[in-house]
């Protein structure tokens, strides 16, 4: 459940009173609804699920998470258990 894919917001407009966007996924472009993420702007990355953006992806948080992963690996090297 919940096939949500990260994509980059390229263009934003309004249609029938609803905020819509073109989102780019590495060269694939899809029209999605931004109604649930009013603070998302062009350049932001969002998670798209069945044509709707559900959240803004936080880059700082992502980098932090990756750093944590790296640490987990390093710890094993230091302990000689890797």
């Amino acid at each position, binding site marked *: 459940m919940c*096939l949500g*894919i990260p994509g980059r917001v390229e263009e934003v407009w309004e249609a029938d009173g609803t905020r819509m966007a073109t989102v780019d996924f*590495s*060269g*694939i472009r*899809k029209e999605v609804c931004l109604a649930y993420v009013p603070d998302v702007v062009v350049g932001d990355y969002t998670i798209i699920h069945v044509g709707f953006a559900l959240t803004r992806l936080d880059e700082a948080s992502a980098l932090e998470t990756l750093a944590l992963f790296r640490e987990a690996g390093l710890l094993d090297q230091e302990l000689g258990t890797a």
Partner: protein
Amino acid sequence: MRPTTSSAASTGRHWRAVDGATAVTTTPLDPENWSCPVPLRDHPTIVMGHGGGGRLGAELIEHLFLPAFGGTGSILAQLGDAAVVQAGAARLAFSTDSFVVRPRFFPGGNLGDLAVNGTVNDVAMTGAVPLFLSAGFVLEEGLALDELGILAQTMGAAARRAGVEVVAGDTKVVDAGHGDGAYITTAGVGLIAPGVDLGPHRVQPDDVVLVSGPIGLHGIAVLSVRDGFEFGSEILSDTAPLNGLVAALLAAGVDVHMMRDPTRGGVAAILNEIAASSDTGVEIVERSVPVPEPVSAACSLLGLDPLEVANEGRLVAFVGRDDADHALEVLRSDPLGVGATAIGQVVAEHAGVVVARTGIGGTRVVDFPLSEQLPRIC
């Protein structure tokens, strides 16, 4: 629309061919002996999955067509892309294919391109030099002549590019509402040179599996313009004739054992078919499989597996290990083989099963696709 000659709807178990005034009774179908076709037992009709290049289609051939046309010992039973037949002193490859793609025009090509290249490729995969094509058209009343003109011009250009000649044809028209625009069937014949012997019997453990370029382009190109799933993309179908690549490989004396073009059902279907028919195992390395980023993104978006997406201008080759580098060199020197790369190998273990080493080093079984791929949300 149900075929009017079938009585399957009423009896659910038997099928009789009715030929004009004389009723020809054939052997009744015995769905009980199919591999547990629950859907078919309850609904004895054709479903879309039968055309998907996967397991459902294979069953239809094995249990419905083969018994009617010749049984297990026949040439048909070998079920290659093309049949290899002896005609006097000559060895011919003979194949047919029907083309029903919708929409008929897609980024990178149209129905006409597929109709020529598809059959040229099926013939070429046996190692034959494709020579002649026939083309049959089933046209729906109301089809624009302009469009038909474009399709025909496209086919002519594709045939010239492939070096084959369309020598026979036929046209039928069906009532409006009964034909979905245009269906094209092509048959092709080619000549196999002496000494050329490709097929599952030649596939051995240690063989290297090569693909001639990036995969998934055709299927995604078509999906990008199909109702319900349209998305913007720059992806173009890879439809192309592969007989040039085949000829180059054979001329260079490469130790090719078998080749197939991964159309419907994708690379996954091909590898499974070959593993089964050669009774070997196949292992691929996912990171080695060339998938263009937009194809990967489209597959992620729709929940598809790139290995199951159709290609119309790629070949998968099984070559002797010692000749793999040579094969890649030959492929890469042709514009259609620029992205050729090794993706795996044949092994003696797990005969009939295709296994992949995943991106993070795990293992997964790459199964024979059941039928057509359905985009998912989960």
